[in-house]
C-alpha cells in the first residue's frame, strides 16, 4: 500500500492500515499538514455549521467530534462553541438552525446576551442571543504526528519531503511510485499493490499521473492569526455560512476566517490584502476588539472540494461530504471532506482497500486512543522559563537545547520541521530573529550545509513575507520595518548576495 499525502486523511489512513496489519508507505512532498490540514481553522466541528444545509455532513461531524474528544485528548481543547446572532441576522434562519441541530443530534443551549457575555466577555454587547454547541479547538499538526506515530511503530514507512513525480504503471495498473527528495533530488522507487490518493487539493494532479481524473472545484480560504487569545470559546456567526464568520482560539492565539475564492491551482497562492480586511471586518462584528488587535500574519489553503456534477456551485454550497473513488486501475482516491471527519474518511477508504485486497479485519481507530500523547508535554511556561539564558526564540521561549533535541530526534535538514515541532518562530516576529539562529545551530550540528544555509534563509524570508504582507499595519508593520532593516541593512542581503 502506498499513500500519497501527509495531511490528516493520509496520516489517518496510515494509522488505520497499521492497526489492521497492512504494510504501507506514506509519501508527502512537504512536512505533515502542509496542505489544507495545516491551513484551516483548527476547528473540531460540532456539525452545527452544516446542520441546515447538509444534514449528513452534520451527523458525521457530531459523531466524530465525540470520538476525537476521547481518542485525541491532547490534540483537542474542549472549548465549546457559540453561534451568535447580531442585530439584522435572520431570526428565521435561527429557528431553522435550532430545528436542524435537533434533527441531527447536536445539542444546543440558548443563551441570553448577558449569559453569553459572562461566558465570553469580549463578545459584541449588541448580540441578540447566542446558541451554545459542542465545537472544539483541535491541533491539526499534532493530530497528524500522532497518527503517524502508530503507523511507524507498526512498521509503516513515512517519507516526508518526498514529492511523487511518477506513478509506475504496468498493463494499465498502478504498481508503484517514484518520489524525489526535495533537497537532494534523490529518486526513490516504491512498489505496492494499491496507491491511495489522499493528496487533497492536488487530487486531480495525482490522479492524472495514473491516467485518471477526479472532478474538483478548488476554493481558496484565507485566515488571519491574532497576537493573543481574544476568546476561550469558538465563536460562529448565526447565519448561513459566509466569509469571516468563525473565530477559533488555539494555544496562545486566535484564528479567524475564512474567505472563499475559486482558484485554478493549489500552488503559489497569494493572499490579497482585501481578504484580510474582509475577515477582520467580519470578526470585529462578533468580537469588537478584533479590529484593534495585532495580527501576526495571514495564511491560506485550498479546500479539496468535489465538483458537483452539472452545476456551477460556489465553494460554500458544495457538500462537505467526502467521496471515495476506485479508479479500477490500482488507484483509490479519497476526496472532499474536512478535518473533523478525517478518521471516518480514513476508515471508509481502508474498508474499500480491504475489499480490493480481499482481507477482512475490522477498523479499530475509533476505540484506541492515539499513541504518543503522553510524550506531548505541551508548552508549560515553567519549563520554558527555567532556562532563560539559553533562549533562541524569545516569542515562544524555545531554547537552544529544545532545537538541538528536535534536530537530533529527526535528523532533518529542514528548518521548517524544527519550527513545526518546537513552535520556534510562531510568535509575533514570525521567525524574523530566530530562524537565522536555528539555521546557525543546525550548521554547528552538521545538519545543514553552510553553503546552502543562506539560500535556505532567503527562501524562508520570502515565504514568511507572503503571509505577513497582506496584514501589515500597526505594531506588526513596525516590527516588520525592524526585521527589514536587519536583513537589508545589517546583513546586506538585498545587495545582490545570497
Amino acid at each position, binding site marked *: 500500500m502506498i499513500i500519497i499525502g501527509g495531511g490528516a486523511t493520509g496520516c489517518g489512513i496510515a494509522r488505520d492500515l497499521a492497526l489492521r496489519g497492512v504494510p504501507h508507505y506514506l509519501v508527502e512532498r512537504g512536512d505533515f499538514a502542509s496542505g489544507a490540514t495545516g491551513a484551516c481553522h483548527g476547528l473540531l466541528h460540532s456539525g452545527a455549521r452544516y446542520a441546515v444545509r447538509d444534514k449528513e455532513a452534520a451527523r458525521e461531524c457530531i459523531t466524530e467530534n465525540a470520538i476525537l474528544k476521547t481518542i485525541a485528548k491532547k490534540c483537542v481543547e474542549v472549548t465549546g462553541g457559540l453561534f451568535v446572532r447580531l442585530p439584522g441576522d435572520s431570526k428565521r434562519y435561527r429557528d431553522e438552525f435550532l430545528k436542524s441541530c435537533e434533527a441531527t443530534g447536536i445539542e444546543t443551549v440558548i443563551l441570553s446576551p448577558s449569559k453569553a457575555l459572562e461566558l465570553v466577555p469580549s463578545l459584541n454587547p449588541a448580540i441578540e442571543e447566542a446558541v451554545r454547541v459542542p465545537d472544539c479547538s483541535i491541533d491539526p499538526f499534532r493530530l497528524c504526528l500522532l497518527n503517524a506515530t502508530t503507523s511507524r511503530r507498526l512498521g509503516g514507512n513515512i517519507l516526508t519531503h518526498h514529492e511523487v513525480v511518477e506513478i509506475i504503471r504496468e498493463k494499465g495498473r498502478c504498481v508503484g511510485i517514484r518520489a524525489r527528495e526535495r533537497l537532494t533530488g534523490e529518486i526513490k522507487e516504491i512498489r505496492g499493490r494499491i496507491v491511495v490518493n489522499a493528496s487533497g487539493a492536488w487530487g486531480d494532479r495525482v490522479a492524472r499521473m495514473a491516467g485518471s481524473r477526479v472532478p474538483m472545484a478548488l476554493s481558496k480560504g484565507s485566515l488571519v492569526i491574532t497576537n493573543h487569545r481574544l476568546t476561550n470559546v469558538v465563536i460562529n456567526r448565526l447565519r448561513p455560512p459566509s466569509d469571516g464568520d468563525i473565530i477559533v482560539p488555539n494555544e496562545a492565539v486566535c484564528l479567524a476566517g475564512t474567505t472563499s475564492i475559486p482558484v485554478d491551482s493549489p500552488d503559489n497562492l497569494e493572499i490579497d*490584502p482585501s481578504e484580510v480586511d474582509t475577515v477582520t471586518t467580519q470578526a470585529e462584528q462578533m468580537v469588537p476588539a478584533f479590529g484593534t488587535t495585532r495580527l501576526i500574519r495571514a495564511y491560506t489553503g485550498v479546500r479539496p472540494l468535489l465538483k458537483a456534477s452539472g452545476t456551477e456551485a460556489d465553494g460554500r454550497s458544495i457538500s462537505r461530504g467526502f467521496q471515495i473513488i476506485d479508479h479500477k486501475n490500482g488507484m483509490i482516491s479519497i476526496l472532499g471532506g474536512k478535518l473533523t471527519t478525517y478518521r471516518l474518511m480514513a476508515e471508509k477508504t481502508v474498508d474499500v482497500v480491504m475489499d480490493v485486497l480481499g482481507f477482512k479485519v475490522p477498523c479499530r481507530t475509533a476505540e484506541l486512543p492515539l499513541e504518543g500523547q503522553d510524550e506531548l508535554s505541551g508548552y508549560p511556561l515553567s519549563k520554558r522559563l527555567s532556562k532563560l539564558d*539559553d533562549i533562541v526564540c524569545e516569542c515562544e521561549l524555545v531554547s537552544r537545547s529544545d532545537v538541538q533535541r528536535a534536530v537530533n530526534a529527526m535528523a532533518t535538514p529542514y528548518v521548517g520541521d524544527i519550527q513545526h515541532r518546537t513552535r520556534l518562530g510562531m510568535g509575533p516576529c514570525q521567525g524574523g530573529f530566530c530562524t537565522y539562529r536555528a539555521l546557525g545551530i543546525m550548521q*554547528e550540528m552538521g545538519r545543514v550545509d*553552510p553553503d546552502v544555509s543562506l539560500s535556505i534563509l532567503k527562501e524562508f524570508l520570502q515565504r514568511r513575507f507572503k503571509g505577513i504582507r497582506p496584514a501589515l*499595519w500597526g505594531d506588526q508593520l513596525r516590527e516588520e520595518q525592524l526585521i527589514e532593516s536587519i536583513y537589508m541593512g545589517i546583513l*546586506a542581503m538585498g*545587495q545582490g548576495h545570497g
Partner: protein
Amino acid sequence: MGEHGYDVVIIGGGVAGLTASIYLAGKGFRTALVSRGDPACCLSTGCIDVLGAHEDPMKGIDRLPRNHPYRIAGRRTVIDALEAFLGLMEERGLPYRGSLGRNTGILTPIGTTKTTCLVPITMEASSGFTTTHIHVVSFKGLRDFYPSYITSRLANTSVSVFDAGTSSTLGLATKFDEPSFVDDFCAWLSGLELPPGKIAVPAVLGLKDPKAVLQRIRASTGREIFEIPTLPPSVPGIRLFRALKDAFLARGGHLYWGNAVASVETRSGQVEAITMAGPCRPSRAHARAFILATGSFVGGGLFAQRGSVRETVFDLDVKVPGPRRDWFLNDFFSPGHPVEASGIEVDSSFRPLGCGLKNLFACGSILAHGEIMRHRCGHGLAIATGSAAARACERLLS
C-alpha cells in the same frame, strides 16, 4: 505639574534629534531633549550609511529626486554636518573613519559585504576583508553569531571559540569593559597559533572605551582586529547613541529621558508648550521653537493604521504612497518598499507643510521621501537633516 522654559525643545532622542540638540546647545541656546527611551539607533550597526546606492555618496546626492531630504538640505549642508559629526566623535573618543567621496564595504555576520560610508574605528580594518586571511573569533553560546555563515562564503578564513560564560552581545561587552577580562582574552589569543592576517570578532569589544580594547589586542597579537556588526541589540549602535547623548550633556543640554509627549499646546500659528508624561510627575515645557525628530515606524514617530498613517505627536499630515495594498511589494528583498517614502513633507526650512506652525521643525527618518532602505542613507540622513533643521531653528531663534 513642573513648569520649565527653554529656547528650544527637541522631541526624539535618536541620531537626528541628538544632532540637532548638540548643535543648538553648543550655540548657547537653552535646549531640552525629550525622549521616550533608547532610540532605534541602538538597534543599528553604528555605521553611518550616507548613500549606499551610489559609489560616490556626494555625487549621488544631486541625482536623488528633488523632494529627497538631502536635496532639501543641499549638498553643502550635508557635507558640513557629516564633517562636524566626525569632529564630534573624535572629541568623544569614539573616532569614525571613512571618506565622504567613496563608500566602503565591511564584513557582515553572514559573510556578505555591507556598503557603508563612515565606520567606527573598531570596524576600520574590516575594509578590504577579502584580500587577506581572516581569523574569526566567536564566543561560546553566543546566540546571534554563527561563524559558519562566514567561513562557508569566504575561502581564506579560520575560526576559534572563546568561552566567556555569557550568551549575549551586551553581556560580553560588559565583560570587555573590565581590563582583567581583556588581559585574559589577549592571553588566550596569544596562545593560538594564528596564521598571518586579520582577526574578526562580533561587535562586543566593550561599551566604555572600545578604542583602548582594540589597541590592547593589537599590541598583544601584533595583528589588525575588527568588529563585525551583530543583530540588535547592537553594541556599536549603543556606543554611538551614548557618545551623542554625552556630547549633548557636556554642552549643558537638559534631558527628559523616559518621557512621552502627552499633549501639545498651539496658539496663533505657534507651538507654545508640550506636556510630558514620564516615570515621575508630569511636567510642562514651553519654548520658542520645537523640533520633531521622533523617527519613522520603528522609532514610533509614525504609526500605521489599517488604511492610513498617523504622526504621533502633533497629528501632522502624513504623505502616504497610496492605499495599503501598495505599501509593500511582493518581494521581501525589494530595495525599499513604497511605504518607506511615508512621512512629513517640509519646506526649505524643514518646517512641516500644511500645519501653519511657524516655530516647528522636523528632521530625521520621519521626513517624507527619505526612502532609507532604498538609498541606504540611514544615519547620514539623520545627521544631515538634524543639522539642517537645527540651523533653520537657529535663524528663527536669533
